[in-house]
């Protein structure tokens, strides 16, 4: 018994002296050292002289699903919205648009784009006309869109109810602005930065409302139509690496294909037809 007490007392003294000796813990109370590291002014991307890419060509194709897609969930049956009832889903039911399979099992809203413009390819100016991002019946229109990073996006609303548009881009600044009822002039938004992947755009007021945007500093990106087909015109005539991205392909960060190589012939066209399994969409 006594020895236990002694041992504890000894521990107390030892710990106390340790505390005195080291300033108790030492580490953080000691004055930290500061060393300086200069900021690199530029990054060597390893590029030598760039040869100009001569001419352009067209790429087209279709993205299809193998198997039968599940019936999309009905988020809000017609006329049953708990709030904003005479606006949200008042005319048509609001259904899950995250995987839309159309004619011939084509998959809509697949993003097909080049991550970075190939060096030496002249980049056409962005359209001066703004892109329109609308909402009707508490559904974003369109569900997926590609814009130029310098292009104005006009956020409009046909709904007689307030909305907000909340973006989650990777490199651009996030925006969260209220869109008042029947906003027809449009609230302008410019992303300003090139994005590496499409990103969600949400309305926090209506939890099902979600769309995907992609802002590029070049014109070479598109989405597939309702039947899964797409066409990209004016692509640099060279070997390109395409990204194929879909919002449901979450297991791989949205990529159905991260590096799809394709060679675009000058003044000619190339075709890419791809099929994906249900498992590629986490189904």
């Amino acid at each position, binding site marked *: 018994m006594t020895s236990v007490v002694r041992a504890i007392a000894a521990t107390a003294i030892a710990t106390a002296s340790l505390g005195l000796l080291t300033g*108790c813990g030492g580490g*953080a109370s000691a004055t930290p*050292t500061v*060393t300086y590291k200069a900021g690199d002014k530029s990054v060597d991307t390893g590029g030598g002289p760039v040869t100009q890419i001569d001419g352009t060509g067209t790429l087209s194709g279709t993205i299809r699903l193998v198997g039968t897609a599940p019936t999309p969930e009905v988020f809000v049956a017609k006329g049953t919205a708990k709030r904003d*009832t005479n606006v949200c889903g008042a005319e048509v039911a609001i259904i899950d648009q995250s995987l839309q399979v159309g004619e011939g099992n084509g998959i809509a809203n697949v993003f097909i784009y080049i991550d970075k413009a190939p060096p030496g390819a002249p980049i056409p100016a962005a359209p001066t006309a703004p892109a329109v991002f609308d909402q009707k019946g508490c559904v974003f229109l369109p569900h997926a869109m590609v814009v130029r990073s310098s292009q104005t996006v006009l956020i409009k609303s046909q709904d007689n109810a307030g909305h907000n548009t*909340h973006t989650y881009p990777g490199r651009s600044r996030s925006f969260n602005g209220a869109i*008042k009822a029947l906003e027809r002039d449009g609230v302008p938004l410019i992303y300003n930065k090139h994005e590496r992947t499409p990103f969600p755009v949400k309305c926090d007021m209506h939890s099902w409302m979600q769309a995907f945007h992609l802002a590029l500093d070049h014109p070479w990106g598109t989405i597939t139509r309702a039947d899964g087909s797409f066409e990209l015109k004016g692509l640099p005539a060279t070997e390109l690496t395409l990204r194929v991205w879909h919002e449901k392909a979450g297991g791989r960060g949205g990529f159905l294909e991260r590096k799809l190589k394709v060679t675009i012939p000058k003044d000619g066209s190339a075709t890419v037809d791809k099929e994906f399994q249900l498992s590629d969409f986490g189904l």
Partner: protein
Amino acid sequence: MTSGSRLTCGPGSDPAEDNTLTTRHSILRLLALLPLVVGCADYQAEFVNDERVAALETTSSVAATNLTNSLNTHFGTPNALVAWGALPIEFGEISGTVLSATGNSLRVSLESDPPTALNHVAVVLETKTPQNRMASSYDADTRILTLTEQEAAPAVTPGTPLRLIGHKLQAGRRLYMRHCMHCHGVTGDGNGPTARYIRNHRFNPLPRDYRRGLFKFTSTKNGFYAARRDDLRRTIKQGLAGTYMPSFLLLEPDELDAIIEFVRFLAMRGEIERRLLTHLAPLMPTDDGNPPRDLQSLEKELAVDTFNEALADAASLVAENWTSAEDPENLVIPTTARLPDDEKSRLKGRNLFISTKINCAKCHGEGGRGNGGFLKDIQKNPETQQNYPTPGLRDAWHKMIQPRNLTSGIYRGGRRPLDVYRRVTAGIKATPMAGFATVPETDRWHIVNYVLSIPIDGAFFDEHGHQYHGGDDSHADHDHPHDHEADKSDDKPDDKPDDKPDDKPDDKPETTQPKSAKDKK
């Protein structure tokens, strides 16, 4: 344990938990631990990795190592900080000129004397190839700067410009450890030793995790998510009303400045880590825990070939965001003075507040108690596209948050009319609270007048359109959205004043339709 700090005084050492000891032993043991508990205001400190780095390590140790090394190289450790010139941080810099050099002793002329005794700050000698050295001391009387010993004495000629860098960062770290670390953690991840006592309630705001570079209460326009120095200063000086963040009004101005820079340093470190993790995301294990396909080529591409490019990109984006936040152009400044705060203006504000055109009441509730119907919806996690498990609004940290109860008179971002104007105009960053900059400015002032009147006059009207009398709002104490009848009624489609067409003139108070009128619908 993913805590922001390594604790010497961890949970296991709590003597009160051990009830098998006799009282006497307990006291002795308490005494034994006393130096640890009392004397240990500081811990063996280190910056901890983001939780995802451990997962990355399982598939690509190359990526995890490169990430960790890169953060070490550019930010250092709490005891050996690195001032990285790529970032817009005031590390504390003093310029000067070398007058003469003898071995490690330099006689110098400095533009200003260091505010405190110099101890291990960086010295950059601007010779043809700049030399990075370290000062061990400076004597203001003799102007002798002593460098820490290095193998070769500095070959500097008189007249060589020099810069002393880091005294502010150093002071900031020291003060941060004393005043902030307990909640915000050594890394600034909001996970300090005290944080776990705060996270026991779902609505308790957690200590800010700086690592996203996001701050809620700022004075900048929507879209500028980084905080201004003045925003951080306001929060530190005044605290955040209604949260555990206290006021540090008694700190000296230079102490505040130093803490602000260190918080910015931690925020930028976290942001760059996060951006690099996004870059490396394809290397993370898939949902089933397996390595990704083409691991080797992905690893070469992301963790080796393009890694430095990604780091430079992250640093430039972070620098741009923090710099642009400081730009006065991006401040939210009213262009018209506040409108007279009279009943007419408050009524207009009230009508706007409950109007479906802008939908304030859908979150804040008809009575302003923060219990609007949108709280009943299940939201999607924007990062995973999965639904959150429970209904309610979340902030960027996925923490359940509550729209402000406007009856309480407590405003986290400040209670001046200007503060409320800024919340309405620019929203609250990192939350679903949007900026209402597109609503005409006069209308925003009406909303401000109304919102500021709620704690005095109640919400003017209750959920059924009846005017309150004398601010007698017996519900005002309830902060919990699910405690409320108003909340329940909001979910009944029958009881929804907001679904009727909103086309009344602004100057008439809007009231709910009588029950019979609604039944006809």
